[in-house]
Structure formats: structure tokens, C-alpha cells
């Protein structure tokens, strides 16, 4: 048999997926930002006909459609297809799909949405392919399709003892009519062979060999390298620069000013034969900048304005139930506290980069982006072509964390490539990355809580001070708070108010946006209230969760019963009731948080010495993300990584703004957690509930920050109300 025959692949046509709208609905803000900055991906009609390819030798190739940022989606979505196709995982080869909404539907990474959005459609894709293979076998063998079964990539007819491998049936199956996806019978979960197991990441063997997988690894024939010098002040632009001097430097081929336009901030591009020449030439660059309106932004100003705003009536109301002021007035005990958290940088380890090639009115991109459709549109606009003339090859990303939801770096590369007329790999330095992020916004909460004589929470007020951009009147990107924030709906007299500081610092969604910050403030203050009322912090929370929610809009609200379930589970697993046995200086803190449809409660046990050195001894997590963990190994890794991320933020991370610039420039002053800071044990316990599975990229993160702060309180009696903890003198042991 010739090689050509062996390798001939037959496409199984899978009909259009039902249930459209897989766009990242949870990420309204960044999508809005994209629209503002030059194009959002239109919600595509789903017409995929090439998810599954079966070769005559039975090899199955499955397209992973979504961007891979380390969340394991390139493995997980194909697992869903392979399960219902009923093939063994070891015959499956996974390839990354390019951006092609007409084939694959929505392709994005954000909001922990991939699991809930794709859980049914991807299984239907696999089931549809299987149905066509069954139909082909039924026709060939002239038997009713209902008499056929499948297993491990074979169709079987028990009564006649006939069977055929999928590879033998693939050609005929491709000619079978497309089944109606809604009528397909999906597997009973007890028959799962792939879903619910530990499947190794499809790229792991290549990763450990250092193979070329990432956007930064792309190399094209004749490719040049570029740097993009941004205005040091956020979103300022370049007026003039010593371009001739730069062009005369060794290895430099081009230097030019890029004018600002929607989706592209102004700056200076330097192009060279090697990236290092271009990077080195920046040291000699002299630019006159137009700083723009962000120049007066500073953390010092924000802090002062927040304090001033807190003393005045709030500008607007997010939620008002009953009469919080009156209830606070008649409460047996009231507690007031001011909480604050800083700006943060996403800091994915792979700096922003994009490879672009512009020729004959068409643009080709090789890039990692969490919203590729938006990136392609932004590039099309920037170079004056139609989005249909952009080809985008989706590269693996060295982390996303929400940074790559904003496609600012793509049009920069596109404009440079069009100007240069050659393939260009534009690569940011770490300093570019940290200095030109879309930061997790800082925020301030001025709380009042009221307890009755028995220590129950009866009144609650938060004056949330956040940010608006320029003269706007709405919170900036990722700087808003929802109206159903716990304990809302469960306290009869409650007010959530808001005032906004005007700024021009770019902000955006960072892993568990909003939640990653709000959880700290709310779950720390709830802890304060528990202690003020002489209550056990677990019992105090469970009592509130056990109340009947107020009627009214419950959009985005959690189910208190599901949350109570994980609180009880984590209390049980951590030995919460026996924490009195812990030695002096060691304490346990608990917190829970609902985000991205996930229910998470976490207990941190920490030991704090006299010099405020903190050792996290152990973390226990209980999570409820529905009835099915799809990839067990990846799930645990994602949850543990989220908690390590959160602990690192809590202890040491802060971006300080001064003069419209980030003070922190690199990892020497933005001290991400390292091996020695990692708790020796992080136990993950899953509570299965009868709900469709939801995502895991984010919801395990938020509770760990307040759980650590609450543990420090338990260990020391010191209530820390400002992040990072290092500002209060705490350090890793």
C-alpha cells in the first residue's frame, strides 16, 4: 500500500452545531473595550464541518478550536468529541485550529466559559460523527442501525459477528446524511472512558523537549524583528524621534513613528535583522512624547480621592434593600472597616508578541490571543483591509490570565509589517509588558456591618470606590461590582453604593475579574463581623447562607445551598472544628466565593512568626462545578495553580501608578510566588452536584486571598485590610 493511500484522510461532515452564542458573554467589559479599540469578533454562525478526520488506518485527528493559554482546552474539548465518537484516546491526534469561525464557531479563551459553552456541542460533534459511521455500516451490512454498537473505534453487529474499524467506514460515512444534533443520544456518564479520567496534555511531550509551539517561537522566511517603543505614560503617543540616528545603528533596517489610531497606541517602531539589535537600539532612542491625559494618574492621588469620597454621600447606588442606615442605627453592634487592594499586572511569562506578514492586500498573523476574531478585526482596521483578508494562525500562549483578551499588540505588528513589506516578528520586552498592561484595577470598600444581640448579621453597607475613565460615568473596564454580591439577597437591610475616581489608566479583566479583588474585601469583612459577634467564622457564614433569599433579580447570583455545601465540605476536610489544637502562631482562615458559575470554599492554615514571616502550611479547597470533572489531572492542576496565584497576589503583588506609569518594571519588583513560597500540600475536594459542568480557569482563585488574611488574623489577631500583605510588613517565611 502506498503512503499516499495510508495517509488519505476523509472528512466526516458534521452538521452545524445548535445552541449558538458561544461568545464570551461573561466578558462584557473586555469585549466592550475591544469594540472601543477597534473591532470585536462578531458572534459567528456555527458551521463546523471539519472537527473530526478519520484516516483509513483508523487514526483520528480532532481539531482543538479554542486558544490554549495553559488552561488545557486543547486537550479537553477534543476529549469531549472523542468520548462520544467512541474511540480510544491513544489513536487521537489533536491539531490546533486556526481562526475560522465558519468552521468552528466561537473561538475564545475567557470567563471560564469554554466548559459550559462547549460541554454539549462538542459531545454532539463526536456523536454526530459516530452516527454517520453507524449509518455507513448499516447500509453496507443491510442491517438496522439499532442493531449496531461501537467500541474503541469499531462498529459491531453482534448477531452476525461482523465488525469494521472506523477507518474502513470513513469514506462511506462521509457520504451519509448529517444527523440532527438535537436527536442524537449522548452517552450515559457511567459509560465514559475518557471524560472523567486523567488525560495528559496533548502538547506536554513536545513542551518538555522545547519544541516550537508558542507565538514567540514563530519564524518565517525573510523575517525581521521589531520592537515597539510606547510612550512611558499610558496611551500617550510619539511626536518626533531621532530616527536617522537609530537607522544608522548596526543591524537596524527601519525606524519610524507609528501614529495612534483606534486599536493602536502611538509609538516608535524599530526593525532589525535580530531582535536584540532592535532592543539594544532603544537605549539610544530619543523621543518627544505627547503624554496625554493619563500623566496625572497616581496611586497617591487615587488613595487620597478614595478617602475623600468615602466621607461624602455615594454617587450612585448599586443595590438597596430595606433601610441599611436605619438598621445599622438600631443594631446591637456595628463594625466599620476600610479595605483596599492595588492594581495588578497579568504578567504572563511569555511577553506579548505577534508575527505578521502583509502582501497583496492580505495579512497573515501567527499569534497567541484569547479573542482571535477580535484581533483579526482590529488588524484589518489598522491596515485598511477587510477582516476576511486576514488569516490568523493560533499559537499556544505562555499564559493569558486575561492579558491576551486585549488585542493591542496584534495591530501594532500588522502596521509594522505593512510598513516594512516583509514578515515581522514584533516582540515586547518584559518592561513593555508590565508597563503597558490593562491592569486589574485597584479598589476601595468602606464597610459598615450591623449585628443583632445574638451576633447575627442584620445590616450591611458598602461604599465601593472604584474608577471611571476620563469624564465617563460608568466604572472602567473590570472596575465594576455586581448587585448580587454576597451577602446581598440574604440581609434584609443592605446597601451597596458606589463612587468613581476619574482616571486614564488602562484596565482590563484579569483571571477571575472583579472577584479576585472583591472576594478579599468581602470575605475578610464577613470574618471581622463573625469575630465581632463572637461567632465561629464557618457557623456565621452558614447561618447567612441558610437564609431564604430576597425576591428580585437574581442574575449572576449564587445558589446559597450549593455554597453551603462546599463550606461544610472544606470545614470537614480541614478539621476546622479542631483548630483549637493548633500551636500559638498558627491559625486557620476560611473564605468562600462564587464566580464564573463555580462554588469554592477554601481554608488556609498559616504560621506567622514574631517578624511577620508567613508560612502557609496547608490549603484545603472544596469546589462544586457540577456533575462532571472532565479531565481530573488538569482540574486539580488548574485549581492548585489558581490558589498559588492568589496567595502570591495576596502576599506581595502590587502595581503602583505614578505619573501615569507603572512603577514596577520587571520581576525584581513584582515578586511572583516561587517554589519556596508554595504550600507543601494543597488538597482539592470536589463536591459533585446535579448541574451541568462549568469552568475552572478562574473560580478557585478568589477565596484563597481572604482565607490567607483570615488565617493571619487567627494566628496573630492582626486584621489586615489592605493588599498586598507586604504593605503591612508581612513576608514569606
Amino acid at each position, binding site marked *: 500500500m502506498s503512503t499516499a493511500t495510508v495517509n488519505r484522510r476523509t472528512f466526516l461532515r458534521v452538521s452545524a452545531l445548535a445552541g449558538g452564542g458561544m461568545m464570551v458573554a461573561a466578558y462584557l467589559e473586555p469585549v466592550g473595550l475591544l469594540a472601543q479599540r477597534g473591532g470585536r469578533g462578531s458572534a459567528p454562525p456555527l458551521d463546523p464541518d471539519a472537527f473530526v478526520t478519520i484516516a483509513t488506518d483508523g487514526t483520528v485527528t480532532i481539531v482543538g478550536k479554542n486558544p490554549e493559554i495553559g488552561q*488545557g482546552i486543547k486537550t479537553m474539548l477534543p476529549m469531549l468529541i472523542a468520548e462520544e465518537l467512541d474511540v480510544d484516546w491513544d489513536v487521537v491526534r489533536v491539531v490546533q485550529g486556526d481562526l475560522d469561525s465558519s468552521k468552528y464557531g466561537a473561538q475564545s479563551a475567557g470567563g471560564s466559559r469554554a466548559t459550559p459553552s462547549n460541554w454539549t456541542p462538542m459531545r454532539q460533534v463526536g456523536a454526530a460523527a459516530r452516527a454517520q459511521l453507524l449509518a455507513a455500516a448499516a447500509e453496507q451490512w443491510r442491517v438496522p442501525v439499532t442493531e449496531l454498537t461501537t467500541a474503541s473505534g469499531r462498529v459491531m453487529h453482534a448477531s452476525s459477528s461482523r465488525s469494521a474499524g472506523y477507518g474502513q467506514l470513513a469514506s462511506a460515512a462521509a457520504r451519509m446524511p448529517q444527523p440532527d444534533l438535537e436527536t442524537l443520544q449522548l452517552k450515559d456518564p457511567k459509560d465514559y472512558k475518557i471524560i472523567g479520567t486523567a488525560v495528559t496534555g496533548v502538547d506536554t511531550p513536545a513542551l518538555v*523537549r522545547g519544541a516550537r509551539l508558542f507565538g514567540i517561537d514563530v519564524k518565517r522566511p525573510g523575517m525581521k524583528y521589531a520592537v515597539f517603543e510606547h510612550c512611558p505614560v499610558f496611551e500617550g503617543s510619539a511626536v518626533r524621534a531621532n530616527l536617522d540616528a537609530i537607522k544608522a545603528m548596526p543591524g537596524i533596517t527601519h525606524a519610524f513613528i507609528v501614529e495612534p489610531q483606534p486599536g493602536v497606541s502611538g509609538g516608535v517602531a524599530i526593525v532589525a535583522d535580530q531582535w536584540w539589535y532592535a532592543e539594544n537600539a532603544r537605549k539610544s532612542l530619543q523621543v518627544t512624547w505627547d503624554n496625554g491625559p493619563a500623566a496625572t494618574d497616581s496611586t497617591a492621588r487615587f488613595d487620597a480621592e478614595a478617602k475623600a469620597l468615602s466621607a461624602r454621600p455615594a454617587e450612585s447606588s448599586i443595590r438597596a434593600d430595606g433601610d441599611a442606615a436605619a438598621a445599622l442605627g438600631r443594631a446591637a453592634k456595628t463594625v466599620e472597616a476600610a479595605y483596599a487592594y492595588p492594581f495588578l499586572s497579568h504578567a504572563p511569562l511569555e511577553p506579548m508578541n505577534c508575527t505578521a506578514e502583509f502582501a497583496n492586500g492580505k495579512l497573515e498573523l501567527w499569534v497567541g490571543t484569547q479573542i482571535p476574531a477580535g484581533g483579526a478585526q482590529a488588524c484589518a482596521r489598522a491596515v485598511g483591509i477587510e477582516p476576511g483578508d486576514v488569516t490568523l494562525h493560533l499559537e499556544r500562549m505562555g499564559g493569558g490570565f486575561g492579558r491576551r483578551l486585549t488585542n493591542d499588540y496584534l495591530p501594532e505588528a500588522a502596521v509594522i509589517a505593512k510598513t516594512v513589506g516583509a514578515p515581522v516578528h514584533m516582540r515586547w520586552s518584559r518592561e513593555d509588558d508590565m508597563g503597558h498592561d490593562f491592569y486589574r484595577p485597584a479598589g476601595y470598600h468602606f464597610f459598615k456591618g450591623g449585628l443583632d444581640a445574638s451576633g447575627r448579621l442584620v445590616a450591611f453597607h458598602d461604599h465601593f470606590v472604584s474608577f471611571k475613565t476620563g469624564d465617563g460615568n460608568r466604572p472602567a473596564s473590570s472596575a465594576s461590582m455586581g448587585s448580587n454580591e454576597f451577602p446581598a439577597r440574604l440581609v434584609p437591610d443592605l446597601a451597596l453604593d458606589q463612587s468613581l475616581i476619574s482616571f486614564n489608566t488602562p484596565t482590563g479583566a484579569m483571571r477571575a475579574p472583579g472577584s479576585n479583588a472583591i472576594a478579599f474585601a468581602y470575605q475578610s469583612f464577613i470574618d471581622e463581623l463573625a469575630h465581632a459577634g463572637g461567632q465561629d467564622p464557618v457557623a456565621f457564614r452558614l447561618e447567612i447562607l441558610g437564609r431564604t433569599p430576597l425576591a428580585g433579580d437574581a442574575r449572576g447570583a449564587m445558589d446559597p445551598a450549593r455554597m453551603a455545601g462546599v463550606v461544610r465540605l472544606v470545614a470537614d476536610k480541614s478539621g476546622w472544628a479542631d483548630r483549637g489544637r493548633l500551636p500559638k502562631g498558627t491559625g486557620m482562615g476560611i473564605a468562600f466565593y462564587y464566580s464564573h458559575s463555580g462554588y469554592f470554599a477554601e481554608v488556609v492554615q498559616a504560621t506567622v512568626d514574631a517578624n511577620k514571616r508567613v508560612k502557609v502550611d496547608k490549603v484545603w479547597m472544596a469546589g462544586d462545578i457540577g456533575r462532571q470533572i472532565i479531565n481530573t489531572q488538569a482540574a486539580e492542576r488548574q485549581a492548585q495553580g489558581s490558589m498559588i496565584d492568589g496567595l502570591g497576589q495576596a502576599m506581595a503583588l502590587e502595581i503602583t501608578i505614578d505619573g501615569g506609569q507603572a512603577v514596577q518594571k520587571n*520581576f525584581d519588583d513584582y515578586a511572583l510566588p516561587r517554589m519556596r513560597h508554595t504550600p507543601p500540600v494543597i488538597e482539592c475536594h470536589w463536591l459533585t452536584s446535579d448541574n451541568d459542568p462549568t469552568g475552572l480557569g478562574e473560580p478557585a482563585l478568589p477565596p484563597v486571598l481572604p482565607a490567607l488574611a483570615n488565617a493571619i488574623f487567627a494566628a496573630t489577631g492582626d486584621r489586615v485590610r489592605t493588599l498586598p500583605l507586604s504593605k503591612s510588613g508581612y513576608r514569606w517565611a
Partner: protein
Amino acid sequence: MRVTLNVNGKSTTVDVPGEMPLLWVLRDVLDLPGTKFGCGIGQCGACTVHLRGRAVRACQVPVQNAAGAEVVTIEGLSPDGTHPLQRAWVELDVPECGYCQAGQIMTAAALLQRNPQPTDADIDTAMTNLCRCGTYPRIRAGIHRAAAVVASSAKGGGGTTPDQR
């Protein structure tokens, strides 16, 4: 200047400025993309390679300092990705995004070279590479796994188990 390097057992001459960091020579000149760029200031360790048998951060090594010396990158750690650490990394599925993992493996390989049975404290001290995804628990487990595999194969393969002695 012309600098002759010995990279992964092959002698190669490059014509670049002597102060150009080894990282960029490896990645952009020699097209060995496994060594990654994360910070450029020696903080993150994504660019870790072995220079004269020691783990170094290639972004901090001017290429002229590597002239004539043996350089090993992740591509040369084993001919076929079967170094015990690489196998352990696959068995435990250590990576999330995977960007830092080549550097982690190179740092760990140098650790095992000088300390075949590292304790957790040894690992804390040696493994200073950043993993933004927080795969540290699995990196630690992977090092222990590789150390155990090497120890057991040394016993079995060498025929020097205590009983046989």
C-alpha cells in the same frame, strides 16, 4: 565578532556582537526556540541552559563568555526527550501553559547532577525559576519522581544492590 560555540555537542560559529546575550544567539540566530525569554534580567529562569555543566540564565551571559564552552539547551538534554526529568514531566503532566518548563527542567537537571536525591528543602533552594501558572507542586513531584527512577535504575542496571554486594 566571530564566536565559536559548542551547542548540544555541535560546534557552531556565529558572527554577532560579543555582548549579545547567549539567549538571543540560541533563539534567534541558531533557531533553538526551546530556551525561552521571560524577563531579560535573570529573574525568571525561563532561559536556563547548561554552560560548562552548570545551570545559568542565558539572558545574563554575553555570548563571548560562552566561546568554546559546552552549552546544552533543552533540545540537547536528551536525544529523544527521554531524560528522566522529561519522562517524569510527561507522566505527571506537569505543565500548564508550559512556557517556563524547559527552564525548569534544565535547572532541575543541574540539581540532580550534583544532588541525585534532593530533599524538599534542596528543591526549594535550587528551583528559583518562576512558573506563572503555579505548577510548583508538580515540578517538585517530577523532580522526586526522576530522582527515584534514576536511583532504581542505577541499582538494577549496575547490579550493585545491597544484596549483590
